[in-house]
């Protein structure tokens, strides 16, 4: 599941994942926190690729809420602006990995690594 407030980013991630053509499938997309929680509860994806900096509620806050409900949910934080504090906090709340947006091409591999087989 892809969560990002930027529609271009969602489109790009979907295109990259589809292009990888390795059995990966985008189950859902969400442009904000509320929509993300709603979609997650409906779809229960294997992995969530979550943007951090979104207007209103941040990706980290949404991830924390999801992990509170299901600690086993695999979440990858996908942010344009990562610093040590953010990575440490993400690790503490149980996020599996943090990937910078300029390394979008690592997403398919990460999905496999932190997906259901992990």
């Amino acid at each position, binding site marked *: 599941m892809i969560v990002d*407030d*930027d529609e*271009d*980013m969602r*489109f*790009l991630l979907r*295109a*990259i994942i589809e*292009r990888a053509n390795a059995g990966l499938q985008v189950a859902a997309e969400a442009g*904000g926190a509320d929509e993300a929680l709603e979609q997650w509860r409906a779809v229960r994806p294997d992995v969530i690729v979550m943007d951090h*900096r979104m*207007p*209103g509620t941040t990706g980290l806050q949404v991830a924390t809420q999801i992990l509170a409900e299901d600690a086993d949910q695999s979440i990858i934080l996908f*942010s*344009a*602006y990562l610093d040590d504090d953010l990575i440490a906090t993400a690790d503490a709340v149980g996020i599996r990995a943090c990937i*910078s*947006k*300029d390394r*979008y*091409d690592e997403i398919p591999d990460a999905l496999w690594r932190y997906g259901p087989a992990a």
Partner: protein
Amino acid sequence: MKMRRWLPAAGVGLLLTIGVVVATAAVVLGATTERRDRYEHAASIEADRLIATIERHLVEMERLALTADSPASFRRAAAPRVSDLTGLRAVALARVEDDRLVVQTAVPSDAGLLSTGTDLRDASTMDLVLARVLTEADAAAGAPYEIADRAVITVAAPVVDVVTGAEADRRASVRGAVVGALDVGGLLARRWDGDVSLIAPNGTPAIDEAGPEGDALDRVVDLRGRSWRLRLDAPDVGWPTSAWVVLVVGVTLSAGLVAMFHRELMRRREAEAQAANRSLQLERIADSGARLQQSLDLGELLPAFAVALATDFDLDAVSVSLLDGEGNLTEAFASGERSSSGATVDLPLRRGWRAVGVLSVRPGRTLDPSELTSLQALADLLAVAMSNAQLYEREQLNAARLRDLDALKNAFLGTVSHELRTSMTAIMGFGELLSDAWDNLDDDRRREMAARIRRSAGSLRHLVDDLLDFARLEQERLRVNPRPIDLANTVRSTVDGLTPLLGQHELALDLPDNVPAWADPVAVERIVANLVSNAAKYSPAGSTVTVSLQPVHDVARLVVADQGPGIPPEERRRIFARFYRLETPESVRTRGAGIGLAILHDFAERSGAPVHVDDAPGGGARFTVDFPTRPIESHTDLAEAR
């Protein structure tokens, strides 16, 4: 306390009194001794004079006795003596008749004492050897010696036929006697101012001349072998004048000295009390001053100061009022009984020569001048402390503002980095997909990706423009170069280039053909771009952003309206501040660095074009920018500055 104050003066007074008494006593004693010595001397003289007087009269009587042949010759001889001898009252010639001594004749003849026929004494007792001196005791035995109520002594000389030879023969030859009544007492009394008495050898008083009594001076007078006692009283004349002078001068001096000493003592006591009071006031000032240094928080400082002041100076109420910018006094703090009666003392709080407030105290009593001085000193200290506290508060606010600004800048940097990277990622990602998977993509897919690249590049360009403008704005290097332009044309061309920013919004233009204005096209472009971008950002997708332009009076009015939630009136002045972002639910769901409106406002200001915000007729925000149509003064200034 009052009793103890008097003790030293009383001690000095006692000492001086003792001194005066001693001096007076010494003077009195000296005078008394001198007086006694003087009387002693006089008494000796009087005793000698007495002896001489009696002796002289006896000799006279003896002479008369020798020559008294007959009464007639006696009277002739005696008369001049009675008149010559002072004190000799009378002289008589007596003859012996049957052993009795009877007066034969007397001078003067009417002298009661010695009148003719008077029986004087038993002739057998007549002292023939020595003249006899009769006394009052003799008179009591039968002889009337009184002369005019005065006691006298009588001296007698025997008239004998045989002058020499055996006593028996001489006694047997006594024929009579010459008797003189002598007023010795009167003589003595005239010269002696005290009591005078003469005691005969047989112990009976011969004379007692009454006078003032006093110290008795006894003298033994030896008269022809028989001792008489003369007693003279030295009269007590009281204190001599010198003693009174000493006493009066001494008492006056003592009183003067005691008064001087007391006054000096009081002066010193008062000086000591004043010094103690000054010390107390200084202590209070130092204590309160130290207390004022303990805090820079007015909320703590004023109550602590007021309570300490009320305690130290026993005040009913204390309040502090401060002058605001318009010269009105506003109470900053008050303590104590507001309802208590009594006068209030207002002390100015001064900073330099300027009053910044008032310290009001209600003492409930009269303050002395030193307390008022201390209170004013404390008011000055309070003014300084308050000034320090206000400066500190201002510094704290500035520090907080700087911290907030720092936080805003950090947030701004994070947002900008995010926006840059997001747009860059989109461009790179779609570019990579197009180049790597070109053959696998259909035309629609390729076009869509290319459009997304263009849109991201547009966003990127807008963001970079904003950043560059912001950097210039920060460095005060933002310049406008106004000139006559067709504002409609500039707005139109700007809006055409904003398509990527509009996203899913509709754009409605209302632009006349030619609207002349006095503006810099670059500034107009940035103003329009930021207004349209802002409208698109804060209004829902699918809504319309309207851009209209029309000449109104002497301005060219640009209006950009959206159909979003609008801007609350209370926020309208702040939205142009740097990094400021609305806290409405709509705005927190929107990205933004908080610099777009600040940039447009700065451009508008430098273009002499006021910006106004209000509600659009159908709801949403409406920004109005009035561009000038001819050069204005600020432009001239800018040109000159350049």
